[in-house]
């Protein structure tokens, strides 16, 4: 099935008000040309005012992030609310949150590619970009929370004057390898997918700067079929490699908790539970980003309602998996007969952090249920709103797991209550600034949609057999 509405069949197109150079129906002699035009104009025309406004906001948040980090380095970890017994909080919550977001991209590109879900082509590029940017945000947090931020190279097996090596039996070390590999492979996957599209930009360029810049990144790609053959094989291999990788990353992240002995962390359900949560949160973020993107950037012709609807279905499905995991945690806490496990979960429901727990339940379990209705699935703004709610919920999920378990563990005499400081909030908010800045730059300068891939699944791309040439 085609991902793009047929040229003739495209519903009556509303020329959007304000002369948005990015909106309006694309032009071109044929469907292929139309796709090229629809995607390329985003980088060729001057963007509408909305882009500048969004970019200014994102930059402001990014500045706030920079200032928060400067303050942190200038003063120390004491600027955060972390205090024994809650020695891990926003820093690790944010890390897990962002890594989780980063799952949908590679999932869409790799797993859906192997499953031959052609609809992915319309959204995979943006989702991959989102993955990279989310992983960038995530990687910052372990770096800044180590307290001695000039020593993170100790995490890597680099021969050194101390004669010491990293400790490979620690899940935190596995994390270094898992997240590092994931970031690298996602980047390769993303870049490789963009090579043919960079070539398109290069060949359309009207200025010398564009020609050189896109020319360098396109590496002289000209679409030779002999090259396409190897390219496709390499892409398939990358997809096959990335698939187990996606599942492994959040599993390894969950080991950071599961291999410890803290009640509420020490459970075997964590790896699948974290992976389901990551896909859930990641898809929610894709919807949150793509609904406005298609609305304002004239991508409606490529990212159709069908795509939004399919994504909401994934959100509904993974949301129920997550809900099941929440329930199963309670069952196991009771079934284990462990006093501390039992207490931890009752404490989540009714303890001092009950507000966080119920927020999480509402956002992650209750809100997505609206997608049982087809009408709601096809209403982009409902999808957008639920996407935002789920993101909030997934952040709270990590907060509940990390914060509540640490605040009240075994000894009542050492219980505590974690209160974030303003710097905690500005760091969290600021990381969104980094994310949105990168994403907006991506929308402006890089191919937001995998043009070559979308073209390849058009009905016009299929070779008709039996009769001669096109004439």
């Amino acid at each position, binding site marked *: 099935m085609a991902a793009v509405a047929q040229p003739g069949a495209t519903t009556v197109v509303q020329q959007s008000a304000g002369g948005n150079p990015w909106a309006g129906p694309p032009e071109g*002699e*044929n469907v*292929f*040309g139309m796709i*090229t035009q629809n995607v390329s104009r985003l980088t060729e025309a001057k963007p509408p005012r909305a882009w500048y406004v969004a970019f200014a906001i994102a930059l402001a948040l990014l500045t706030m992030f920079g200032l928060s980090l400067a303050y942190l380095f*200038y*003063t*120390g*970890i*004491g600027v955060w609310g972390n205090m024994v017994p809650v020695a891990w909080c926003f820093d690790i919550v944010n890390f897990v949150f962002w890594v989780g977001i980063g799952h949908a991209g590679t999932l869409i590109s790799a797993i859906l590619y192997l499953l031959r879900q052609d609809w992915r082509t319309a959204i995979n590029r943006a989702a991959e970009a989102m993955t990279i940017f989310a992983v960038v945000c995530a990687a910052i947090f372990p770096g800044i929370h180590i307290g*001695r*931020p000039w020593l993170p190279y100790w995490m890597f097996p680099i021969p050194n004057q101390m*004669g*010491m*090596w*990293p*400790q*490979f*039996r620690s899940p935190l*070390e*596995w994390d270094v*390898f*898992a997240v590092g*590999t994931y970031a*690298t*492979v996602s980047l*390769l*996957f993303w870049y490789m997918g963009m090579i*043919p599209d960079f*070539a*398109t930009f290069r060949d*359309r360029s009207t200025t010398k700067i564009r020609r*050189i810049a896109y*020319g360098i990144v396109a*590496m*002289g*790609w*000209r*679409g*030779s*079929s002999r090259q*396409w053959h*190897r*390219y496709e*094989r*390499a892409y398939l*291999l*990358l997809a096959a*490699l*990335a698939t187990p*990788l996606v599942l*492994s990353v959040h599993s390894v992240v969950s080991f950071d908790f599961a291999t410890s002995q803290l009640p509420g962390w020490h459970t075997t359900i964590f790896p699948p539970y974290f992976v389901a949560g990551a896909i859930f949160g990641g898809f929610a973020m894709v919807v949150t980003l793509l609904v406005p993107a298609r609305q304002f950037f004239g991508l409606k012709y490529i990212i159709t309602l069908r795509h939004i609807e399919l994504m909401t279905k994934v959100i509904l499905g993974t949301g129920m998996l997550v809900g099941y995991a929440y329930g199963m945690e309670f069952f196991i806490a009771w079934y284990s007969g462990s006093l501390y496990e039992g207490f931890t979960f009752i404490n989540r429901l009714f303890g001092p952090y009950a507000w966080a727990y119920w927020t999480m339940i509402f956002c992650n379990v209750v809100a997505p249920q609206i997608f049982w209705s087809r009408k709601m699935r096809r209403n982009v703004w409902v999808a957008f709103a639920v996407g935002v709610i789920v993101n909030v919920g997934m952040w709270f999920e990590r907060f509940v797991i990390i914060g509540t378990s640490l605040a009240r563990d075994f000894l009542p005499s050492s219980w505590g209550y974690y209160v974030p400081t303003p710097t905690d909030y500005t760091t969290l908010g600021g990381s969104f600034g980094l994310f949105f800045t990168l994403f907006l730059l991506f929308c402006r300068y890089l191919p937001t949609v995998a*043009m070559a891939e979308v*073209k390849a699944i058009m009905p*016009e*791309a*299929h*070779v008709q057999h039996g009769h001669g*040439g*096109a004439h």
Partner: protein
Amino acid sequence: MAAHRPEGPPKLLGVVAEYETPTALVHAAEKVRDAGFQHWDTYTPFPIHGIDPAMGIRPTRLPWIVLCAGLTGLTTAALLQWWTNAVDYPWVISGKPFLSIPASVPVYFELTVLFSALTALGAMIVINGLPEPHHPLDLKERFGRATDDRFFLYIQARDPKFDESATRALLESTHPEDLDDVMEDQSSPAGLPRPLVIGLAALVCAAIVPFVLFVQARQTMTDQPRIHMVPDMDFQLKYKTQKASAFFADGRTVRPQEPATIAVGQLDEDEHLHHGRVEGEYARTFPSALPVDEAAMKRGQTQYDIFCAPCHGLSGAGDGIVSRRAQDKEQSMWVPPTNLTQGYLRRMPVGQMYELIGKGVRNMPAYGPQISIEDRWRIVLYVRALQRAGNATIEDVPAAERGGLN
């Protein structure tokens, strides 16, 4: 750049045909393939399903290369973890085996994937001959549409089957939109633009700077105090034992014990059990409150293996792993732990050895805070056993077992 311009008319490099649909291209490709051409290619905006057989492209060997890379990654991960954590720096982690395969699996997996993925992209680029800055077809204005919406077929003149008119006729018969000769590029090859070259050179120079600074820092000394980043890690808001206190009148942070008080559990009134002495002299017997039996010996052994063996060695010979490593590293300040089976220690009263464990002796730290009173006595008991074993003669072996020793 005054490049050398070739003389004479430009050479014919080949012919290029343009098609509007993938179908037309595939049919044309089949004809060219059947005509037996070798040096030819098609150019398309997206991969066309079915073009490989139509052109006779054989499957690439890329997957095999990636397989090798994956196996290399796996081997690297295995060797890395084994060498670093089991051989070069045997790291005791909660008594787990040095080489524990289950704990190594995550890194096995990650490096396998990492090596394969880097190779998949790298090999694709290399085998495809990228980056390829110049191509004869670039001169054709229309060829830019090969990455947009048109399909091209290019036969090179260097193909043995190439014949200017016959090849043209062959392509003509495939009904191309456009058919054109490709000529040698006679203009001087455009180099990289100047600003770009300068920019790149500057970048390379800048990239060297951090390394130069590293090397300089490693080679030189400074009398400046070190820079404190994240200062509240170094200067924590807490009272340290020997620091002055502005709060207490006597200015001391550590509070002296209130006179005539005893902390809970520190009455220590049994001179023999708690202080290892009998009437002021070191005790030569074990306190009567503690049974001296098999269980006490076993407990003594476990505690000795945990607390003493890292320095004094499992047999008490003074060859524990900490000491051996310090000697391997040629640490000149290292005082080797004493051989516990020596004569003067065999004669040392048990009460003295008990006290020495709790309070430390010369360079050996005190273990009182870590080891309970009872366990200190049991360790002494076990040290006695080690001393006996370390100086044993054949007479000590039960007659029935002697045959097994040669």
